[in-house]
């Protein structure tokens, strides 16, 4: 985990600072900046030192929980705190939605391979995967937000979960389709397993065979996908936050890249990496819970 963290932060750091243009000059806008002020600012942000030293200082700060300072002079951690909550709520809403509905649909379809439900789920999920997310977002906004008035169209005025439902569903829809298909395929495959035949031979009910003997074995690949996806959802919020006008990390990182605000970009990206790594760790632990054969001694 540690090498991955160092590697990714270094990569993001280098990428941001390799961007053309001078952040200090951008900060000054159109007005000319006195050389003394310019030098002072460069020194304040350590921009006059070699890149590797800058990175070292950044990493050292990170270890002490210091994400640095934006070019506006605000601590990055403060900026993130407010926006982070919005993005986290959005991502978690999407995640819960795809977990519950995705696995539910997958089980429903997988119970009878080739049946009506199976065919409907397969074609429906293909459709969802094929539609670009922004088309889905605008359509949902128009239909459920404006025409039907079921959900607020934009903003966070109604708080969690109501304001986050529609954007969450749109954000999670593509992953939901994958999860439904993954669950369905895994279930169909496991139904053919010998131990399922044993369970039937034990005289257990159909339901017990499904829930106790088939589903748990089928969920290993689904859990893997869900874990990785929590990270991807966080990163995937940029478009959705824009469309639904949610003041989250996605909007923040977008602006930060435009004004070459290095510390903010790296800070947010680092946090995303951390979430991603943490989600993977949880998945690894869950493997052992689901399947004792992959338990770590």
């Amino acid at each position, binding site marked *: 985990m540690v090498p991955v963290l160092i590697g990714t932060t270094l990569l993001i750091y280098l990428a941001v600072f390799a961007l053309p243009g001078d952040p200090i000059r951008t900060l000054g806008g159109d007005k000319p900046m006195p050389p003394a002020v310019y030098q002072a600012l460069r020194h304040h942000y350590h921009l006059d030192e070699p890149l590797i030293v800058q990175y070292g200082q950044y990493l050292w700060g990170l270890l002490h929980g210091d994400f640095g300072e934006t070019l506006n002079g605000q601590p990055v951690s403060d900026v993130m705190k407010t926006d982070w909550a919005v993005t986290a709520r959005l991502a978690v809403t999407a995640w819960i939605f795809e977990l519950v509905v995705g696995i539910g649909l997958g089980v429903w379809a997988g119970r009878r391979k080739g049946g009506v439900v199976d065919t409907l789920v397969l074609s429906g999920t293909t459709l969802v995967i094929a539609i670009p997310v922004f088309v889905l977002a605008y359509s949902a906004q128009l239909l459920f937000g404006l025409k039907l008035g079921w959900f607020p169209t934009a903003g966070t005025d109604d708080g969690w979960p109501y304001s986050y439902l529609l954007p969450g569903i749109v954000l999670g829809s593509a992953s939901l389709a994958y999860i439904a298909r993954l669950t369905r395929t895994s279930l169909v495959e496991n139904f*053919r*397993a*010998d*131990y399922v*035949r*044993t*369970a*039937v*031979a*034990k*005289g*257990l*009910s*159909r339901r*017990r065979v499904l829930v*106790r*003997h088939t589903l*748990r*074995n089928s969920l290993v690949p689904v859990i893997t996908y869900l874990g990785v996806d929590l990270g991807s959802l966080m990163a995937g919020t940029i478009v959705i936050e824009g469309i639904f006008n949610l003041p989250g990390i996605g909007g923040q990182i977008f602006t930060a890249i435009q004004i070459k605000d290095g510390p903010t970009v790296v800070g947010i990206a680092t946090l995303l990496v951390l979430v991603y790594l943490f989600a993977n760790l949880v998945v690894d632990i869950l493997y052992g819970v*689901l*399947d*004792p*054969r992959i338990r770590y001694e």
Partner: protein
Amino acid sequence: MSPLLEVEDLHVEFRSRGSAVNAVNGLSYTLHEGETLAILGESGSGKSVSAQAVMGILDTPPAYVTKGSVRYRGTELLGLPERRRRAYRGANIAMIFQDALSALNPVHRVGDQIAEMLIVHRKMSRRDARARAVELMDRVRIPSAASRINDFPHQFSGGMRQRVMIAMALALEPDVLIADEPTTALDVTVQAQIMKLLSDLQDEMAMGLILITHDLGVVADVADRIALMYAGRVVEEADVEDLYARPAHPYAEGLLASVPRIDVRGRELTPIKGAPPNLAAIPSGCPFHPRCPRARDRCSREVPGLRLLRAGEGSPDRSGARSGALSPESHRSACHYAEEVSGGR
């Protein structure tokens, strides 16, 4: 009194996209109390499929029971609604499978898998059921059973896993145990132990045992009677010693001739010529005729029925007791020229 298990004219068909494969074509046999019936046959002869049909655990689709009857103590099982059929499974007729590693659920503790039988069928509490599971594991001679109850199947050796399977199958003290190649996946020494265990338990519990195998050696040791299957039907049915001594079907004759003998050195093995029939296009007449050294014109035209050659006089069974009243020690063969075959010895 009706026999323990009667299978009559059982037909099983695998259907896929308009074509059908006839896996079982009119299988009949009878199992009496305390009897060990070996169902012997090569791969694809329909032995496992017919056992699954008797248990009611065929995968439908693609497999369908198209005809026939399976009676447990006189009660017809085929056509029973699933709920009622389920009550017989495990409780009256239990089954153990070839590969215990894949047949046991990898994610549940063995104790729980055994206890599940008692919890579901007998509505026992989890605590009592697990205590009973330890007794059962003791009974199948798993060393220090109490400490192994929380282990997972992958933590057991092959032989111990098969013992767990057996403990699970015997949890409800069924009258009929179907063992589908129980020792095929095991080492020879472990095979012998498992067969010994099965036959001991059978004596203790007075079960009827159906032993599905392709191993002539295993059969000779433990079985009372043999039903020899070919192309989805029984071609010969007899007492073990009788069948080994006086086979009445050319297929049985061929099988016995192909067994390597320790007392005859330097002899080439005598295989049965040809390959097992394609079940989608079973030969006309006697299905064995293309491979049969005794085949004549009639064999490719007329399907021979399973007919009685000799009625039994009640020879001693494996346990030494005379069981003539229970088991009709008859000899049946499905060959037009059965007398000629068995007379040739």
